[in-house]
């Protein structure tokens, strides 16, 4: 009865209803839209960070992360192969790497780089390097002394494709090892720092130069789905650790490998919800104000109801029920609008390349595709609904306090 009364009351004055609805719709839409942009940015940042040689999970020798040298490498290749073959599910990719600090030099320049020995075909499925070639070619399985360098590296070293590059590093016996490579391909990356930092050679060549035999520095694993909370990675890490059952090997998730990224994701999620609160307060003033005015306009009506014997509590319930319907309606339309606007810009993405250098430094992607999270929708909807109902109690109590005489005297 109360519900029906409330529903009919809303549509008695469609103009007033539409005015309040509009405020709710705009508020909800803005929350969804902003949330989608932020989440899109986060997802893209995480994807970039993962493709930058991190992956979802990595396996190292226990001491490697603190002290990334060839001595701290993993020797038991067969065992790792076997464990990974059994434990990883469908769609997951993994690859081996040798990764070590080295000095690159040619006739004109010398500088520190990270030498990465890769398995070309497997690596291409996991990190950015497979799709980052801008000139020359990618590594092939039979390659011997071929090397890939970054675009910015070419400029610093004043060199080009086909030229020689000497790499020096300490081998497993702590002797200086060096080997000449020939540049066959040039890659581009999200940041110049990455282009200058990494050089890629075939895994077997790196291992040979450093006298590592069958040992490798790291295994990088990419799981098929992106999980921003890192839950699936944590589960997988536990499973792998149990399967390897050897504490000289250490399995770590991207959350452990990229603590900054984890902290950033947590902070930006928190900040989004704070902003939801701020937007709600801005919207709340409008809701209270318009509802109050509507109540005063209907003073006669409330007086009449009370004269007919309606109790104050029933009046409060009635007004709150009206607010509830309005909020639910506004939230639904706001959601639909949010979906439509996000879908419209998601098709082409938002181009941020104007701010390229800033994007590099802050790890923010050059192109942004908004993403809607169910969690954000629920939070936005709940914030608006719960707080909206709460603030509508104030006008409702006002309405319940009208005495029949006072109310019916009006006009």
């Amino acid at each position: 009865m109360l519900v029906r009364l409330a529903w009919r009351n809303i549509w008695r004055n469609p103009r007033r209803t539409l005015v309040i609805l509009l405020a709710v719709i705009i508020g909800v839409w803005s929350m969804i839209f902003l949330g989608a942009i932020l989440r899109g940015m986060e997802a893209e940042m995480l994807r970039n960070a993962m493709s930058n040689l991190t992956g979802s999970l990595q396996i190292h020798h226990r001491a490697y992360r603190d002290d990334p040298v060839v001595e701290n490498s993993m020797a038991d290749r067969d065992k790792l192969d076997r464990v990974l073959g059994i434990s990883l599910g469908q769609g997951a990719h993994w690859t081996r790497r040798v990764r070590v600090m080295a000095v690159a030099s040619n006739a004109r320049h010398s500088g520190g780089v990270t030498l990465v020995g890769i398995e070309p075909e497997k690596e291409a499925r996991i990190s950015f390097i497979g799709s980052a070639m801008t000139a020359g070619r990618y590594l092939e399985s039979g390659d011997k002394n071929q090397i890939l360098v970054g675009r910015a590296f070419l400029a610093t070293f004043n060199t080009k494709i086909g030229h020689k590059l000497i790499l020096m590093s300490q081998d497993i016996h702590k002797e200086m090892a060096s080997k000449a490579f020939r540049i066959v391909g040039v890659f581009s990356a999200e940041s110049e720092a990455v282009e200058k930092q990494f050089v890629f050679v075939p895994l077997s060549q790196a291992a040979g130069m450093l006298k590592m035999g069958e040992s490798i520095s790291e295994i990088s694993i990419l799981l098929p789905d992106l999980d921003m909370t890192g839950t699936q990675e944590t589960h997988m890490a536990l499973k792998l650790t149990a399967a390897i059952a050897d504490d000289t090997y250490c399995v770590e998730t991207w959350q452990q490998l990229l603590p900054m990224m984890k902290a950033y994701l947590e902070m930006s999620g928190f900040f989004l919800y704070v902003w939801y609160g701020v937007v709600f307060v801005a919207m709340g003033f409008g809701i209270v104000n318009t509802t109050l005015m509507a109540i005063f306009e209907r003073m006669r009506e409330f007086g009449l109801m009370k004269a007919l014997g309606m109790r104050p509590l029933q009046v409060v319930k009635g007004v709150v029920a009206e607010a509830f319907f309005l909020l639910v309606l506004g939230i639904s339309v706001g959601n639909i609008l949010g979906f439509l606007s996000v879908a419209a810009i998601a098709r082409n993405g938002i181009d941020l390349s104007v701010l390229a250098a800033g994007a590099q430094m802050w790890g923010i992607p050059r192109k942004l595709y908004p993403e809607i999270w169910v969690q954000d929708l629920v939070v936005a909807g709940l914030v608006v609904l719960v707080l909206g109902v709460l603030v509508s109690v104030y006008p409702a109590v006002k309405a319940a306090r009208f005495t029949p005489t006072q109310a019916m005297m009006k006009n």
Partner: protein
Amino acid sequence: MSMELKMAWRNIWRNPRRTGLTISAVAFASLILVFMLSFQFGCYETMINTSVKISTGHLQVQAKGYLEDKKMRQVIRDPDQVATRLDTVKGIDAYTFRANGFALVSSDQRTYGVVVTGIDPLGEAHVSTIQSLVRTGRYLTANDAYAALIGAPLAKNLKVDINDEVTLLGQGRDGSIAAAVLTIKGIFDSGMDAMDRNVIMMDLQGFQDIFSMGKTVHEIIIIADALGDVSRVQQDIRDQLSGKREDTDLAVLDWMDILPGLLQGIQMDLVSGIIMYIILIIVVAFSIFNTFLMAIFERTREFGVMMAIGTRPSRMATLVMIESVCMTLVGIVAGIIIGSLLTLYFQQHGIYIAGTEDILKQYGIPDRLYPRLSLISASAGPLVVFLITFVSSVFPALKIRKLNPVEAMNHV
């Protein structure tokens, strides 16, 4: 006009509750904008000043092309002469010389390629925070020619500690081999990974000997009195250096040239901030638009009466506009005052956001953030709020012109 103003002012306070809520909405939006903008500007200034103090300085004098190529031979030939010119420029707090080279650094067990930076220990202490970043051991003194400061992670990787020796092997300015044995006197930890892992610092004179630099240096690092003075000081230095033939191949760069990433990062953050503010302002504008519109509906009868006694619709529209402007102004002033007080409070005490320490550490910022109130941060947001609410009050005011006195008076 004064008559309308008086009527408008009285009309506003005929319904104090509604007016109060409308003003609160405007005040809230203004307050948030004042605080958030001040907070952002404060963070930027902290970021700039910390980055600048850890390494780059507000301004640098370098040989042209050194910024891009970092070649050993791109030197400032006569740094002392440039220094005498700098002494005549007002607004410079301190300056110092530096030289950089690449070398292999080996301990007993390990070898790494690093950047070796030659610093003048006394001058450097006035310019950068390096002295306070030395966590173990001590900072360099004037006659420490073959002593070195090393980053904590690099020391760990090289497996060296205080008073251990490391061997340098690199290439001098003239292409000769540069080799030396340095004793580690201090271990620093700036929090910035790139610096802590890749840099060894030593005395400038020792550096000049080892790398055959003679009296030349690569960079003159300058700290201005205040961040706001930087562009003026830069121009003054350019003026001082121009016209002297031997100086035409020198470049005067500011922190934006040296750290383009920092500037663009700030711009990017500002842009995303502005998007959020625009969304907030739109929501507030709708709140206010609704209130105005409802108020007009409510007062239909009153307008009908006024029309019937001969008030022209345009005059009533003006009246309503003045009412809305008055309300907005009161809200904005209240918002600016409360927002400024709030900002000033946190400017004194700082804001601590849990979980951000690691991120801040990367930029060398301590764990508290300080907003900074300025004329721009206090006025820009509220001004936009004023404009938007003004526009959103035009439509309801125009509605009045369509009223018909007879119908309007019959309106309940």
